């Protein structure tokens, strides 16, 4: 790299242009980061859905809860290793605008089935299992409303109603975090028994669950087991639909549909445009020096050497701009997380996307340097020298 000084001088020759080209590339890759985070957010965490986990819901709609008696029947199916259940509660704190994902569950089996998703100290788990009115809450929601362990919090429900019309008083037994990227840290999870005692028996909604989750020993057997379960409850008043958790999450993401996809297309196009503009400028910067390249050739520089010098120059610009853009968007998105505060919990920059970004940066540097250098190498020295 004896000729690094030449490359350096070339970069400094039009400082203004170099700086702004780097700036444009920087913003293009910031956009790339946002694009990838949107992609992750709109796929609603489908990448994190458990492989060996299946869900059972009512065939007509998830809003029709299934009888509690189904759980013991599920356990009898061969290959099923563990089961748990949940009810969507629709909880809010103080004002109906302050809503977060609230589930009524069976604490012990819930944390067994979702052992990786919830990170909280054993002691807090134990307290929760023993506390009928206890709840655990995600660190994001806890921070937002200032919930502390041990605190009593009144939570109202939009779906369920206490006979006295008041809120449910929960004790925060634990605050969970999660090491899994993009996992939902906004949930409020509490013991179903506390909800059960406030549901009047004549309503027909007591001892009914919105969905069951179960784990199976062999994920490859999922289709057969699902079919078996659905057949078991066929022609009953509550027919079921069983599928992998992944399939449910993916269907849920598809319900949101085009919007995410269209946004991605648009941002992708925008990024491409900016790259085109800056790539063109970088190529231009080299094209206007064609006669200098001819001088170097006359002085005895080999074509390979000239090419590598030009490529080094363009790759350097791409690497500085693109590298900074990637790093900054990664840091920024990881630090701020969901920009809508709770509506898109899976808004994060996936690590594999970072690798793709690095490849894109390299491709940009190569493409914008290679074309003009190649064009220049095809010219005869005499012609190139004559060009102005």
């Amino acid at each position, binding site marked *: 790299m004896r000729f690094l000084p030449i490359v350096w001088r070339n970069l400094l020759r039009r400082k203004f242009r170099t700086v702004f080209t780097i700036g*444009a590339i920087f913003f293009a890759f910031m956009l790339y980061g946002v694009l990838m985070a949107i992609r992750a957010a709109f796929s609603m965490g489908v990448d994190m859905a458990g492989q060996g986990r299946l869900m059972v819901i009512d065939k*007509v709609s998830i809003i029709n809860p299934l009888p509690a008696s189904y759980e013991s029947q599920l356990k009898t199916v061969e290959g099923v290793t563990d089961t748990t259940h949940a009810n969507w509660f629709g909880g809010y704190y103080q004002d109906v605008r302050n809503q977060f994902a609230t589930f009524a569950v069976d604490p012990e089996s819930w944390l067994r089935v979702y052992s990786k998703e919830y990170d909280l100290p054993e002691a807090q788990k134990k307290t929760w299992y023993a506390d009928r009115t206890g709840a655990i809450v995600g660190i994001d929601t806890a921070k937002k409303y200032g919930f502390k362990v041990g605190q009593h919090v009144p939570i109202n429900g939009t779906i369920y109603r206490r006979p006295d019309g008041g809120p449910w008083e929960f004790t925060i037994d634990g605050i969970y975090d999660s090491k899994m990227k993009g996992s939902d840290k906004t949930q409020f999870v509490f013991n179903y028994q506390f909800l059960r005692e406030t549901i009047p028996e004549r309503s027909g909604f007591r001892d009914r669950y919105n969905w069951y989750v179960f784990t199976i020993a062999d994920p490859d057997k999922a289709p057969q087991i699902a079919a078996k379960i659905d057949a078991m409850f066929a022609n009953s008043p509550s027919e079921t639909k069983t599928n992998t958790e992944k399939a449910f999450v993916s269907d849920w993401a598809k319900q949101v549909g085009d919007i995410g996809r269209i946004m991605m297309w648009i*941002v992708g196009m*925008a990024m491409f*445009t900016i790259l085109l503009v800056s790539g*063109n400028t970088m190529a231009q910067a080299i094209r206007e020096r064609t006669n200098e390249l001819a001088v170097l050739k006359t002085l005895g520089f080999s074509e390979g050497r000239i090419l590598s010098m030009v490529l080094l120059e363009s790759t350097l610009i791409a690497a500085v701009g693109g590298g900074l853009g990637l790093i900054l968007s990664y840091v920024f998105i990881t630090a701020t997380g969901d920009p809508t505060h709770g509506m898109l919990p899976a808004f994060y920059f996936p690590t594999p996307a970072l690798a793709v970004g690095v490849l894109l940066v390299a491709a940009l540097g190569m493409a914008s340097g290679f074309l003009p250098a190649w064009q220049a190498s095809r010219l005869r020295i005499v012609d190139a020298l004559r060009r102005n």
Partner: protein
Amino acid sequence: MLSQIIAVTGVNIRSIRARLGSSSVAVVGIAGVVLVFVAVLSIAEGVNNTMKASGDPNTVLILRAGSDTEMTSGLAGDQTRIIQDAPGIARDGSGNPMTSPELFVVVDHPLKRSGSPANVPLRGVTPEAFKVHDHLKIVEGRNLEFGKNEIIAGRAASRQFVGLSVGTTLKWGESTWTLVGIFDDGGSVSESELWCDVKVLQPAYRRGNSYQSVYAKLAAPGTFQQLKDSLTSNPQLTVSAMRAPDYYGSQTETLQTIIRTIGGIIAILMGVGAVFGAVITMYTAVASRTREIATLRALGFGSIPVVLSVLAEAALLAIIGGVIGGAIAWAAFDGYETATMNFQSFSQIAFAFAVTPKLLLTALFYALLMGLVGGMLPAIRAARLPVVTALREL
């Protein structure tokens, strides 16, 4: 001075043709930004239009207190009768109150675009519903007959979901339905829904004699407060009353926040990126004309005309880019129909992207701003060039 400005600007603009390559890059860059800006915000506008079409200010929606959406509300049959007799509600020719108790549920039914199941809203109504929702009209087939398992589908629903045409049979759980008609409701949210007889729907969903909402027509625009006070002070009821526009305005808050937040981030990043793009383009344009500009200066043209002429060129390129981007966005997205999940009602809502004139004007304004900001630095540089060295430059 003015004649100088006009003369230099004229030279600049006429010579754009000679620099078509680099100029078109700036135009493409700005067109891209405008396209993105308009496209993303047209989603939000589209959702907004649907919500506006749904809110007749003389219609009041009554829900259980504490519920923010029909989906989570619940009213017993006897409560709906108490609500009917409240003061301030319009009465029809024979003196009956114009109220419509309704049951709102969702069914799992596949979307056309992906074939995957979605939560399709299904609304159970009484014959009174058609008096309260008086904009609704059947555009194909016939209205449903009460007491039968018959369904009518909104126009948007029939376009977004699989197999919703007149005459088809639908089976959900233990009940089988026949679709007998398609209705139009002036582009409102109800066009995303399926409607049926509430008395048939209640047992199918094990809802006994319960409802979720009551829609009521006001006797006069001013009687809302009277109705609201009488309902909320009645000890037999725990309900809240909202004018329809307020209710529908609140229904898509989540969706709108998501679109606008993400749209905002994208627009800002892209806008700054495009300004950088415009700067390098204008810079290249100025750099390639260094000698020309120096010649003009040597001939006695002042620096202000030179600055203004570069700015004018940048502005012109930006506006061309803006118009192109806006036109593409309008052609590609205006009226594009789709459906998405409305998180608040937990059900699908169909809407059409709306590229409004206001949106286009805002986008053009941004384009112009980007052009001017992008042209500013190169313009100042052009004016500051020392004449002698610049003349010598290649």
